[in-house]
């Protein structure tokens, strides 16, 4: 489990992370979204032991990560800006990784290079942006790490490759109980990949939830009654939003879906319909409930 307690990181006068707390359980895919400068990359760099925290701590399985090769050997980090040795081929990079990572598997490496259809002897410098990310993914996944940290994982990958990476991640999580932490600007990208999602804003996690819960506990209801009514009619139901057009009200409700359905049906509505919410909509309403304007927090993602 990755645990961050009051994690703070400053770069001169800029505070990248401000007393951040989070727990990432084992065997899950944990997604992080946030605008530029929200602190996603900084958090990943702290988790992977690149940066030293200015305050608080970040631990993996109860051990501090910074300058701790025992723990760092169990995690692998693929940054947003990739690095390869000058003029190196995938095979040369594999040599580097295998020298450092005890669990590095050449069998896996071969499998992955075949799956991604990359020439292991070709100079990585000649690869396209997407191919370079594939190369980095191959190397990272060949390390068979317990914790896989991906910064902007899908940046530059075409849809086919995105799916391939996702599937590989699922496999690692399923088969080896690995934990993947991935960041993205795209909520949609994470929606069908992650088990848990957090939203970072100005160096802190302002929202964190299990995706399954998130989607099932928040839903949109369209309802109409004979005669006049207002939101007071729905007392006892937690509403994040109530908008009425004519006799039809659109309500965003948080709570148990069946229980809420039973409650509303008992009011004998002339129209009752439960509509699915996209993850983005869920975020909009959850953020609104927390007093944030979603468009401010995740402006780019909405755009």
């Amino acid at each position, binding site marked *: 489990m990755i645990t961050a307690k009051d994690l703070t990181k400053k*770069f001169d006068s800029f505070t990248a992370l401000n007393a951040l707390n989070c727990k990432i359980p084992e065997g899950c895919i944990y997604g992080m979204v946030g605008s530029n400068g929200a602190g996603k990359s900084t958090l990943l760099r702290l988790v992977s*032991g690149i940066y030293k925290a200015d305050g608080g701590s970040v631990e993996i399985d109860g051990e501090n990560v910074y300058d701790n090769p025992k723990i760092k*050997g169990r995690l692998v980090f693929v*940054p947003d800006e990739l690095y390869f040795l000058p003029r190196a081929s995938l095979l040369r990079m594999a040599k*580097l990784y295998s*020298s*450092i*990572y005890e669990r590095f598997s050449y069998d896996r490496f071969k499998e992955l290079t075949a799956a991604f259809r990359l020439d292991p002897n070709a100079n990585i410098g000649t690869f396209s942006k997407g191919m370079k990310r594939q190369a980095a993914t191959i190397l990272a996944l060949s390390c068979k790490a317990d914790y896989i940290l991906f910064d902007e994982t899908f940046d530059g990958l075409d849809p086919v490759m995105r799916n391939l990476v996702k599937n590989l991640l699922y496999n690692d999580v399923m088969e080896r109980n690995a934990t993947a932490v991935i960041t993205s600007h795209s909520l949609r990208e994470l929606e069908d990949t992650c088990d848990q999602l957090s939203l970072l804003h100005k160096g802190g996690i302002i929202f964190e939830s299990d995706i399954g819960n998130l989607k099932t506990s928040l839903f949109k209801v369209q309802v109409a009654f004979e005669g006049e009514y207002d939101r007071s009619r729905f007392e006892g139901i937690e509403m994040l939003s109530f908008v009425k057009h004519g006799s039809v009200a659109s309500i965003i409700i948080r709570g148990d879906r069946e229980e809420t359905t039973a409650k509303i049906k008992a009011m004998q509505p002339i129209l009752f319909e439960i509509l699915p919410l996209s993850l983005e909509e869920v975020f909009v309403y959850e953020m609104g409930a927390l007093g944030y304007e979603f468009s401010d927090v995740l402006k780019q993602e909405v755009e």
Partner: protein
Amino acid sequence: MNKIFHKGYFSEMFRQLKVIGIVAAIILMASNFTTAVSALMSFASETGVLANRIPGGFELAMPMMMYVYLSGLVFTFVAYNWLNRRAYSDFYHALPVTRKQMYYSTFLAIIIWMAIGLTAYSIVHSLIYLIFDLPFNYLLFFCVYVNMLIGAIEVVGAVSLACAISGTRFVNLFASIVILFVPRFLLSVMSVFIETDAPYMLSSIASYSLFFDPSYNIIATPYGSIVQMISNGAYTVNYAKIPAMIWSLCWSVLLVFLGGIAFNKRASETAGIPTKSKLFQTVVRTAIGLPLLLLLMYLIVNEEATLVAGVFLVLFSFIFYCLYELISTKSPKKMVKAMPLYFVCVGIALLYLVIPKLIIKAESTVKVDENRTKGFYVLKTENGFFSEFGLGGDQTYSSIKKEKIRITDDKAIEILCKAYDRNVSMINKNSDTGSGMWLTVKIDRTNGTDIVRNILFSESEYNTLSQLLEKNEDYYKAGIAFPPGHKYFFVNGLTRQEARKLAAVYEEEFASLDDAKKLMLKSNMSGYIFGIDSVDPFEVSTGRFNMTLQVSGCVGAKNFNESFAINNFTPKSLKMYIDIINQRNGDEGLKMLDELKAWFETGGDNGSSEYYVDIGNVTNVYFYDTNYGVNSFSGNNSKLLPKDADPEVYEMIKMLANAELSDDPENALQVTVYVSWHKEKNISYSSEKVIYLKLSDEDLSRIRDLDVLRRVNFDKVGDYTDPVLD
């Protein structure tokens, strides 16, 4: 070990440096090619005097030193290339390797590559000397090799430290230079100031060994030779000084260790930032502003400073100071902010006016008197009896022996103490040094310590001391010793094998001589310049022959080079030499004399031609004719136009041309003929021919009477100069 070493990371770094390592080693090894070729050429020509000299420490160190500097810098920059870019830095810092492991594994990988280069070079270099049997001091070379290995540690330590505390290539480079050179540079400049303040007085670089002696921390002091020059030979860089090596190693290890600490503390996010340390930035900036100010201080001390020079030097020092700040930080604001701190530079420079005086003052408080002095050693001398330097400034075997002899003679100690006292009083009165001779002496004190001082002796003190030492048996024996052990021999005009054979004969002859003759054979060739009045070119023992047996060898790591005269005191050697030379040069030499004679007979007006003839050891007579006029040729010796020459000169040439080759030193006259160009015959000779001619007593006496040296037509020649060997 695991805490500071990571096998995987080490092997990765070793791999990353492989190409550079191999290329650098090949380049260094290739420099051996030059040595081999020059050795072969010298071997083939049989005339290269330098081939007889055992290479000194600095010559041996030069290629390796360049390698250590350049490859140390390149290796370290390449190994830490990732430190200067955020993405690269993040990648490496994400690896499961501790910072300490990274640092020390990288260090080891670099050092091993450098050691491979140095070792490969050293083996090949030694083999070349071994195969060609060239003069070489293997112990000295080994010492140089060890010094260079230590130097490699130091350079890598310094550059690693620089990389750890700075985050751009530009600052890396300047920081490396500052760490590596500035401390020793400042100390060496201080020693120069001391020498300037008190030349030939009490101060001696050797007396402040640890801080001022360039032998300590050799790699940081390639300017050791400059110090050597400034100290007028009173100081030589010693590559075989064990304490100096230990000091260098300690300093190197300290640098590596400091680099390790800095690297351990270095945050990945500092990549690309010139330096986080304001103090360090100030240090580098100050170091860049200092040299020109120190030059100004030097001019002030020497009373050579002018207002223009002062303004110029301060202005440029300030410009360099500001430019560095501007380029490294790319911030004009920071540059302006740093300007007031320029006074730190000025302050340090001003210290150079004060500290040397304080040091000399402190030095002069050390009392040296008869009661406190057990004895003394003469380490270096300026001139005279003690002065025995061979080729290229090498010591003679005798001087190496002599400097180990402790002089305990009461009278000598009294002279020393008197001279010392006078030197102290000169310093105290700030008076002029006056004239005299200086010696560098190591004084053994009764309290068990010793001090090294340059002491100026008056001429009479010096002469008395010389006489006392001549009477000292050990000293005298050292002065007439023939070097034992493995030696290299060189005799002009002979092959190595011939020289070796001749040396064997000579050594036997030398051993059988009495001490006075031995001393004559050695002192004849010890650098004393003979005047025309003191040497008779027809005198067998002095002027008739000028050949020497040069002996090179080593005592431990010290090289020596000594010349022994071959003359009638060593008749077997002399005959052997004459026979070999005549056999080799005889026909050619006689032919040249014939041509010269014919030239005289035809009036010598054949366009541009030039001959000269040497007789014995001390005379040169030029014969030339040129279209450019009589006096257009400038030379040091007497000149003669054939058509205007004294008829007796022709007589002399005729006698020489008609003579036969000699096989007896008693009647042999050494004649050197050289024709540089003969237009009419279209001949040119590339080298002079020495021959030994047999002249009857009558002819010899006739030539002596002609005394062509003195009676050539001086008035027609115009610019006659004394035919003294220079």
